[in-house]
């Protein structure tokens, strides 16, 4: 096993932990955290895919993950503001 596939499996682990927490936890902040953990898992699988065996590294997954990180922080900011708004509306 190469380090890349080891980290890909760690990525799967993160995805699964996040998924589990999203299903069983009820409070907003933990759910938002678990979505972020799931995202990190996917990113790890992608970056692992880029680090194959060759001498050159594949930049396309890196760009995809950069995009993904920005999308994730946007979604997180919105989700947090929404949970705050909902709490106050009650």
């Amino acid at each position, binding site marked *: 096993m190469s380090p890349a596939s080891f980290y*890909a499996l760690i990525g799967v682990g993160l995805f699964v932990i996040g998924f589990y927490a999203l299903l069983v936890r009820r409070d907003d902040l933990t759910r938002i955290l678990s979505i972020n953990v799931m*995202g990190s898992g*996917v990113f790890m699988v992608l970056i692992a895919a880029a680090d194959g065996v060759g001498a050159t590294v594949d930049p396309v997954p890196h760009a995809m993950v950069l995009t*993904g990180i920005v999308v994730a922080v946007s979604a997180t900011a919105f*989700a947090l503001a929404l949970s705050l708004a*909902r709490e106050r509306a009650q």
Partner: protein
Amino acid sequence: MTPLWSALCVVAPLLAAVTQCIKPRWGAATSIAALSLIVLGGLGLASALIESGAQTIVLSGWSPPLGIVWRIDGLTVTMILMAGIVGLPVSVYAHHYFSSSTTANRFFWPLWMLLLAALCSLFLSNDLFNWYVTLELLSLSAVALVTLAGKPAALAAAQRYLYASLLGSLCYLMGVALIYSTYGSLDMTLLRAATEPNTSVWVAIGLMMAGLLMKSAMFPLHFWLPSAHGAAPAPVSAILSALVVKGAFYILLRIWFDLVPEAPPHSVTLLLGAFGAAAILWGSLQALRATRLKMLVAYSTVAQLGYLALFFPLSATGELGQTAIGGIVYFMAAHACAKAAMFLAAGNLQRAAGHDQLSALASTAQALPLSMFAFAIAGVSIMGLPPSGGFVAKWMLLSAAIMNGAWLWVAVLILGGLLSAAYVFRVLALSFVDPGPPAEQEAPKRVARSSEWASLMLAGMALLLGLNAMPMLELMSVGLPAIRP
């Protein structure tokens, strides 16, 4: 000209959104201008399509696998035209609907334009990762639009919608990561030639489809839809039910055509079909039980989306598959017009009465004959009666099922039609019951004429789709992908 027409569909709403951030007052005008440009672009693409067939447009000058291309075929153009044509009356409607609230009026337009840009990019794109970005843009703007209602119930529904949506996106992205790890490409045309049946590919397709089924609210992953579509402001409900769920389903179709490496196991198509049947029955029953008009229409969406799932078992065989595809695409277009009309009409009733409790709407319904008329015509299409777009679509699905000898699906289709007739008549009956002594009821508030005409226009379009089926079907079938043997 094709690059210009297609660029127009994406650039026009983006520029409108940017303008609206600076000049909120120009919201309605710039939106209607952008939508007109999208319709123009769609028509331009349609004529290019009829002249020279399906085409691809290379973005940034780099062809796949490195770059991204737009693929323009009958399916793309139909969907873009659907978005533009449904969007126009909805915008006219929204202009009046939101005019009383400064916050909603300021933020509705840029959110709606960004949603539209996401939708058009999604329909044009042919790239797995680009679809992920469009999906996120689409869902985040859809959720934000739901929050414009401002009530606690709407915020709670929006939150549920957001979590479901993000979970769906992440499942989809995990599938994309697996596909990219295996084949080193994101372009659907290249992947169509490359994918082979193996475990990684099946797991990846399974994840992507699960995520997309969640986003398109396919039973049993529909749990977020009724509350979100029911609690949103009426024009937003129309946008969500008519367009947003179709976005995710469009990608699902593309994956089914291009990524699935061989005819999928019978059990899978049967399971998806069973979900569809369950959605039709359960959604219709909930619509029959609903106490609020908008919830009734929202549950009707759950039921109608079930028909989309019937596509999977019906398209399983070659020649008939083409009939099923045509039927499904037609169904999406007809449902978009009819459902948007219904939500707008329901919004008119809600506005006039100040609530949407079905039990107390009779006098309002009788004061708004135009809206009720629009609801009735849209209902004809939802029920699948001639002469309407819904009829053509269901007829095609039905004939595919009959020729297949799939009597189970025939029964589901017919039963679904009867059930939808039942819940549509629940609403239409409001026009005929005795509203009770007038003294006990508040006089209905006035509703803008243009709002009533907007819903009637959409309903008329659903009808028109039934009268002009042949040219539409011809346009749709240009470059329609074949199902794998």
